[in-house]
């Protein structure tokens, strides 16, 4: 038992080494986006606003995807709790895509992302009557840059108070 635990720890250390060395070799790229992207999903806090303390207003997506990440689900649970507490507040979920796609497809993709967020809010008890979905496709980027980090900030669904 004990030996296996040691072995496990050793393995962890080993993995960490591998990861670190991988980081070291890609240092130039890593310094730019370090800590703010996982895969190509934005995980930083730049551009994020707060609906209330501890309630971030937006979730981020991978390229061409509308799947909610663990972090996104956590954000949406906080939003659902905040909406349950403030039962008079309605929201608009604004879905966005990055610029690396055709305009019409991105309109649909923005709608799909906002609906992914809407569905999750509904499973946490928020009535669909309180949620409006609005897709902007790639028309309203929050970051005007043309690089992977900017695009990751733009692939988002933002919860906006409607009243």
């Amino acid at each position, binding site marked *: 038992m004990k030996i296996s635990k040691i072995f496990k720890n050793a393995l962890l250390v080993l993995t960490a080494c591998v990861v670190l060395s991988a980081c070291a070799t890609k240092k130039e790229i890593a310094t730019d986006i370090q800590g703010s992207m996982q895969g190509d999903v934005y995980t930083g806090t730049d551009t994020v606003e707060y609906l209330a303390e501890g309630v971030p207003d937006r979730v981020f997506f991978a390229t*061409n995807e509308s799947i909610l990440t663990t972090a996104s689900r956590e954000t949406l649970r906080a939003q659902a709790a905040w909406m349950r507490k403030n039962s008079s507040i309605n929201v608009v979920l604004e879905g966005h895509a990055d610029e690396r796609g*055709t305009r019409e497809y991105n309109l649909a993709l923005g*709608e799909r992302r906002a*609906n992914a967020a809407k569905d999750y809010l509904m499973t946490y008890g928020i009535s669909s009557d309180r949620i409006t979905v609005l897709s902007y496709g790639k028309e309203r980027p929050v970051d*005007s840059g*043309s690089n992977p980090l900017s695009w990751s900030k733009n692939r988002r669904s933002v919860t906006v108070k409607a009243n």
Partner: protein
Amino acid sequence: MIKKIITLFLILIPINSYALIEVDITRGNLDPLPVAVSPLSIDEKSRKSFEKALKKKNIGEEISSIVENNLSTSGLFNPLSKEAFLQAPDIANLKPRFEDWNLIKAQALITGKVNYVDDKLRVEFRLWDVLAAKEMMALAFTTVPSNWRRVGHIISDKVYERLTGEKGYFDTRIIYVAEEGPKTQRIKKLAIMDQDGFNNKFLTLGNELVLTPRFNPTSQMVTYLSYFKNLPRVYLLDIETGTQEVVGDFPGMTFAPRFSPDGKKIIMSFAKDGKSDIYTMDLENRIVERITNHPSIDTSPSYSPDGKYITFNSDRSGYQQIYIMKSDGSDVKRISFGNGLYGTPVWSPRGDLIAFTKLHKGKFYIGVMRTDGKGERLLTENYYQEAPSWSPNGRVLIFYRETKTDDKGKGFTAKLWSIDLTGYNERRIKTLTDASDPSWSSLLSN
């Protein structure tokens, strides 16, 4: 406001039926036909009347330079410098001295004259085959003087048609989205201009976001997407009267509109619950029909010119690809199988090709494929470009391209470009502002 359909008083002086000069437009034309466009001759009285009416010193020269510019931008013709012309316009129009035109290597010659008659503009012009020393075509028509630019375009179309055997595309307009301001708060307005960039007009004020305007192939109607009151919906706009209305009564976003080839229906996407499907609405009886029903994104529909098929964009395979189906939604077939993603399919007015935008390894391409998906040809590659629209004769594609203005990716410009189906003759179309989402009209006159 727009546009008294030009009345063509055709005095068709007999056309020689045997082909003289011919221009092959099916291949990249690396050796454009040398053509001399002699200024339309004008008598002093007419010149003064036009100067008063139109504020143009010599309307004959103005019209000729429109013709020259059109022929030159087509890439098929090489208008020769007027300085080399030996014969005066009025005499050339009566009877060209072919040896003189031969000497400057002109193979075709356009002559003509313009008159001010009863407050109208009367023009006549002739096309001559210099080598054969023969008249190929002669035509005269009358219109209101304010149509003078269109006169130049109509002459260009007739010359193009006579020399290539196919309809021209010069007497046409482009509707597009005029853009300004920073990327994060871009202001977009509908705008319309002549195919050569003149007579630009803004049709909306920029108070709401507007996207993807498209012409009705049979009338002066336009369909587009507007975010009026923050409700993205497909609208119908009559550019003659300026009246507009929402298309259909959908409980959510409608987008990606286009007209059917007979102009009687609008086909578009409706997005609901994360799914986008394709619908049509009949503009006469307002009946809405659902065409696709799939949990994927189905968008960017475009009819075949006979109205029997629809090409569209779907990610039902996992990623954006191009499909075709019958116009009732049956027999759905995927036709794009190359590497990368495919979007914005548009059926050629000739029926044989589908133009598209392709994304592959961080680059955007405008390309064409046959309607069975075979014979893919990429015409142009760039950092970012999309949304091809066909010229009415199916020989030229117009699209828009964004270019970064510094290497950090900050700042950008959006411009309209055109390219021949052959992949040659790529050129920028001048616009007053940044521009995107161009749509080419049908020929205004025939």
